[in-house]
Every structure is written in structure tokens, then in C-alpha cells.
């Protein structure tokens, strides 16, 4: 019976662990998305600045 309880406990632990891993993979995918979006925003910002500079130079 004791072994039974231990087995059950291990099962529960593993279940939460795997839920954690799944959640973490989602987070990682989101992280890539965020990095990408920041990259695009910064490129836009940079382009705008460059345009302003060239306009000013003209």
C-alpha cells in the first residue's frame, strides 16, 4: 500500500512537471514573437530616423 502511495505521488509530480514543460514551450514561442516584434519596431524607428536625416540633408 505504501508503494502505491509513493507511485501515486510520483505520478502527480510528473503530471505537473509535464504541464510546466508544455507551458514553458508556449512561453518560448511567445518570446521569439516578442523579439521579432521589437526588431520590427526598431527597424521602423531606425528607418524613420534615416528618412528624416536624408530629408534634412536634401
Amino acid at each position, binding site marked *: 500500500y505504501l508503494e502505491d502511495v509513493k507511485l501515486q505521488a510520483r505520478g502527480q509530480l510528473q503530471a505537473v512537471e509535464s504541464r510546466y514543460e508544455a507551458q514553458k514551450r508556449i512561453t518560448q514561442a511567445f518570446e521569439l514573437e*516578442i*523579439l521579432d516584434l521589437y526588431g520590427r519596431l526598431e527597424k521602423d524607428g531606425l528607418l524613420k530616423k534615416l528618412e528624416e536625416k536624408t530629408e534634412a540633408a536634401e
Partner: protein
Amino acid sequence: MAEDSQRNFRSVYYEKVGFRGVEEKKSLEILLKDDPLDIEKLCTFSQRFPLPSMYRGLVWKVILGILPPHYESHAQVMMYRKEQYTDVLHALKVIRFVSDSTPQVDIYLRMYQLESGKLPRSPSFPLEPEDELFLAIARAMEEMVEDNVDCYWLISCFMNQLNTKFRDSLPQLPKAFEQYLNLEDSRLLNHMKTCSAVTRLPYDLWFEKCFAGCLPESSLQRVWDKVISGSCKILVFVAVEILLTFKIKIMALDNAEKITKFLENIPQDSSDAIVSKAIDLWHKHCGTPVHSM
């Protein structure tokens, strides 16, 4: 028998010359040999005696549930705690809420906000009063605890204790303070009533921040021993002792503003004595917790 009286004699001797701590340390060490640890006994011990600083971290972490009672699980659980810390910190960097130059206490605040679902939309939003409270406690804890992971967990669990276990009793403390000050020194209370100071005392500093930023950390941790192990009423007696200690000064101040300002910046050199006297006063009025060892 002879050995016994010898032991007792030595205890008395230690007590007289200030080595009472030796006996206390020994009895705590016996409690810490229990596996699983008996949290209730650890609480009773911390209510009754000062914690030796070498065991304070362990006892706080066990009482607050950061570490479980079984020693066998400590390494594993601490690994989970550390991973959680790393996960949350990394996430805050990704969304640019913290950077390498963010002060450590601000990092703790953002982590706590994220974990409790209260992260504001932007890091530039003004802080709420509850955030200032968090920062005061975090600053004090940072002085007491070296390791960042331990420190974050202690702050966060301490805050949770204030917000749950003590949520209903903390607002009652100003009233209890008035009651006990009246018992100890009614003239002093009357003086403050005459100055209309009683309602304007720094209750938030005393009872919400638990004296963080008011007492130096070396004295403060002895007060927090009691708070963490289950009694927020000790805070009332620290406040009463502060007033009794600076009675002459306070009696000489004639308006509420001056009194409050003085109390918010009390001299630090007598704080150790204030805490010792406050603990005695607390035991006197509320009894010494039953020692079930």
C-alpha cells in the same frame, strides 16, 4: 543528579553574563534534528526565544513554507524555487520591464507583481501605495539575506503572510497600541491626545511596513522572528516601547506634526534595547507561548 545541578548552575551563569544564547541554541539544534521538521514547535521556539542568526534563514524558510518539513526534499524543492525565480526574471527582461541596471529591489517588485498578476502595462506607470510597502520590506530583507533567490522568496512569502494571515488583525493594531500605551503610561498618551497626534502616528510604517526602514536590520530581524512565526501583535509593543524610550523628547514636542516626524526618524542607537524591552512587554501582557518541547 550532580551533573544536573552542574548544568543548571552553568545555565544560570551563562544567563548572568549574557550567554543565555548557548542553551537556546542547543534546544533549537535539537528541534532542527527532527525529520520531518515540526513547524509548530519551530514557531513556538521563535515566539519565545531569539533565533541564533546562523539558523534564522532556515527557520524562516521552513515556517513560511519555502522549504518543506522533510530534509530529503530540500534540495529538490530549492531547485524548483530557483527555477521559478530564473523563469520570472528572464520573462521580465524579455518584456523589457527590467534591465541589467535595474536596482535589485525593483526587480523583486516586478517579479512579485508578475507572479500575482498585477504587473502594470508599462514600467513607467507610477507606483501604488502597496508597491511602496513592498519596496520598504524588500530593502530591509535585502540587508538581512545575501542570496537573491532566498531573499526574493522570503520577501514574497512574508508579504503574502501580511496580506492573508494578518489581513484582518493589522488594522486593529492602532487601537491595541492606544490601549497598551494607556496601561503603561497614560500621561504620555494624554499628551499625544492633547496634541491630536494619536490619529497621525506613523501607523503605516509601524504596522504595515512592520518597522522596515524604521529600525536597523539587526534589531528588525528579531521583531520579524515573532511576526513570521505567527504574532503581529509584537508590533504594537515595539511601538509602545519606542514611545516610552523617547518619552522625554516626545513630551517636549507640542504638535502632532513634530511628533510624527520625530517618530519616523528615531535615533538608531537604542533600537536593540527597544526591541528587547518590547519583547519583554509583549510576554508580560500576552503571556509567554507554551513551550511544547
